[in-house]
């Protein structure tokens, strides 16, 4: 127990931030991730912090290369996020932000399912405050929907863990695989947090509602923790390949027509996680390496993109493509950083996305899956369009929206610059990242063939965009809301209930009237019976109490008889 648990530094420090006045809080918030990182460097590999929890031996700290990589990544993200949030006077965001980061760190170092569950729930609870920090009814409701999904994921994980314990007598979190029913529970639990198709909506719903700094934190931890959990538990499960492939495809269509820039980025996030999921599903050294290294890079470049969009939101108060444009004059630095981020996500050679995404695609080729390979290539081109072109183009260039504002605050620029430099450094010198990967790497990204082909892909994708723009065929950005899975529970279900209640011919009318009355009555009854005047909620008369007791006794007697 000699080691300090890495999560502890961020968790305790995050709590401390609530108590500090503004000046020291700013200093401490930036130093915390640094301390955490230094501590991480000193920790040896192996299982530590064995805590007896009830009758079990819990392993709260298990360190190996896989968890270390995510640990580094999370500390980096926390550090950059803290700098990005330096200008804030609000202690809620930075405090919960770092606690949230600590929960993520805790989750990736958790050696058993219970410790994982604990941090899993902590992630959900702390992150929702980042959504609520935006304030207002919209953020509140969106946060509640978000929390409900996250809690559901936690409950599934809990039940899965209990079943696992009952079946195997062990709670240790290693390769799980698919087989028994509870394996699927765990897969679903991870899948919700990982934004699997149809379970993804919380991400699209909540992330764009958060504050500028909040989204930067949000983008780094929750989904990447889930990617870690999948890589640990379900490496090489074939079903993940299909799920991942779908994840790479469907968001790019949404992103293409979405107007809210941060929502575009959220879709693009699902798309990127799709690549990781495919990598995990492929398994093997190349697949896993590709998945986790892409996760590492995604934390940086997606954070960078969110930061640049956050800076725009911070300065202009709008984040809609239809209202922005021409900002490169006002915010040149932000613009430059954004382009670096866009280049990274588009996997342009010399940028970080190139060296990780290509591993996944090569992994698909090695496994001989032709269709999958074509799909991933298509998705790559799609990403390029929405994240690589659409984001910088409509925000900074396009037609001039005549918005004149100041450049982003210094701390934001510093944070963005750090990320941008990292994108370029990692992209130009891959061993930096490759040496940290869980499996030894023999993949070489920079071959002439690969560079040329990737450049061709990228440039011609841009060319398609240019052609569409010049010919005037590019559809205009419109203010809109796009229907997604949330339509089911925000519109369809309520409408269906209303419809069922309303419709019906003369014959079934009575039936439906009855049904309507029944539903209404049920809700009214619950309220009526349980409020302060209701049967259950009000104070009962003494004689009725006595009567109930006697009836109860009679029931017992009859039952026992």
């Amino acid at each position: 127990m000699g080691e300090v648990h890495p999560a502890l530094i961020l968790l305790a420090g995050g709590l401390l931030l609530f108590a500090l006045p503004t000046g020291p809080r700013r200093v401490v918030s930036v130093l915390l991730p640094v301390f955490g990182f230094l501590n991480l460097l000193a920790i040896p590999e192996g299982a530590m912090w064995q805590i007896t929890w009830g009758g079990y031996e819990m392993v709260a700290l298990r360190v190996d290369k896989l968890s270390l990589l995510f640990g580094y990544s999370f500390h980096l993200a926390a550090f950059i996020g803290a700098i990005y949030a330096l200008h804030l006077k609000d202690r809620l965001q930075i405090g919960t932000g770092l606690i949230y980061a600590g929960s993520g760190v805790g989750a990736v170092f958790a050696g058993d399912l219970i410790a994982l569950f604990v941090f899993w729930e902590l992630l959900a609870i702390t992150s929702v405050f980042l959504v609520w920090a935006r304030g207002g009814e919209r953020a509140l409701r969106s946060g509640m929907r978000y929390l409900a999904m996250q809690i559901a994921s936690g409950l599934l994980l809990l039940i899965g863990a209990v079943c696992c314990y009952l079946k195997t007598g062990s709670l240790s979190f290693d390769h799980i695989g698919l087989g028994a029913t509870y394996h699927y529970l765990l897969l679903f639990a991870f899948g919700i947090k990982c934004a699997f198709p149809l379970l993804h909506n919380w991400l699209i719903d909540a992330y764009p509602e958060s504050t500028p700094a909040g989204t930067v934190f949000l983008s780094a931890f929750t989904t990447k923790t889930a990617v870690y959990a999948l890589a640990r538990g379900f490496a090489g499960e074939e079903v993940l390949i299909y799920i991942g492939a779908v994840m790479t495809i469907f968001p790019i269509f949404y992103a293409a027509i979405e107007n809210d820039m941060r929502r575009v980025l959220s879709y693009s996030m699902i798309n990127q996680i799709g690549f990781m999921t495919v990598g995990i599903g492929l398994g093997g050294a190349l697949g896993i390496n590709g998945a986790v290294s892409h996760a590492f890079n995604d934390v940086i470049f997606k954070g960078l993109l969110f930061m640049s969009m956050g800076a725009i939101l911070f300065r202009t108060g709008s984040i809609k493509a239809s209202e922005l444009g021409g900002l490169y004059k006002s915010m040149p630095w932000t613009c430059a950083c954004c382009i670096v981020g866009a280049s990274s996500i588009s996997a342009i050679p010399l940028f970080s996305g190139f060296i990780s995404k290509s591993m996944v695609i090569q992994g698909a080729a090695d496994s001989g899956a032709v269709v999958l390979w074509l799909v991933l290539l298509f998705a790559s081109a799609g990403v390029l369009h929405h994240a690589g072109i659409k984001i910088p183009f409509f925000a900074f260039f396009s037609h001039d929206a005549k918005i004149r504002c100041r450049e982003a605050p210094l701390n934001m620029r510093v944070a963005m610059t750090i990320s941008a430099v990292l994108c370029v450094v990692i992209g130009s010198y891959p061993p930096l990242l490759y040496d940290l990967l869980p499996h030894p790497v023999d993949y070489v990204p920079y071959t002439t063939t690969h560079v040329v082909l990737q450049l061709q892909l990228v440039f011609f994708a841009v060319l398609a965009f240019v052609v569409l723009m010049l010919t005037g065929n590019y559809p205009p950005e419109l203010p809109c809301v796009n229907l997604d899975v949330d339509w089911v529970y925000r519109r369809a279900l309520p409408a269906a209930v209303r419809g069922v209640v309303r419709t019906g011919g003369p014959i079934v009318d009575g039936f439906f009237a009855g049904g309507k009355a029944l539903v209404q009555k049920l809700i009214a009854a619950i309220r009526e019976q349980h409020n302060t005047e209701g049967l259950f909620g009000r104070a009962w008369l003494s004689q009725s109490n006595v009567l109930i007791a006697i009836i109860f006794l009679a029931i017992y007697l009859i039952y026992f008889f």
Partner: protein
Amino acid sequence: MNDSPKKNEAVRRLVLGFVACCVSLLLLDLIVHRHLSFAEGLLPVEGWFGFYAVYGFVSPYALIVIGSIPLRKLIMRSEEYYDG
């Protein structure tokens, strides 16, 4: 985009330069000896001249065409959709 003639000129030059880059990249295909991603020639198309270029061009084009017409009709709603 048609703010001023001067800017228009700049855009025109940029586009031209870009197209030149594209063409030269395409021509590189003739010079560079390409290693196929797939072993055993599972996907011979991959080795054809300009495969990546064409694929790169068509994908987003298709994406936008599909996205702009049917998808917009299908799922796009006014911003107040959920507020009502």
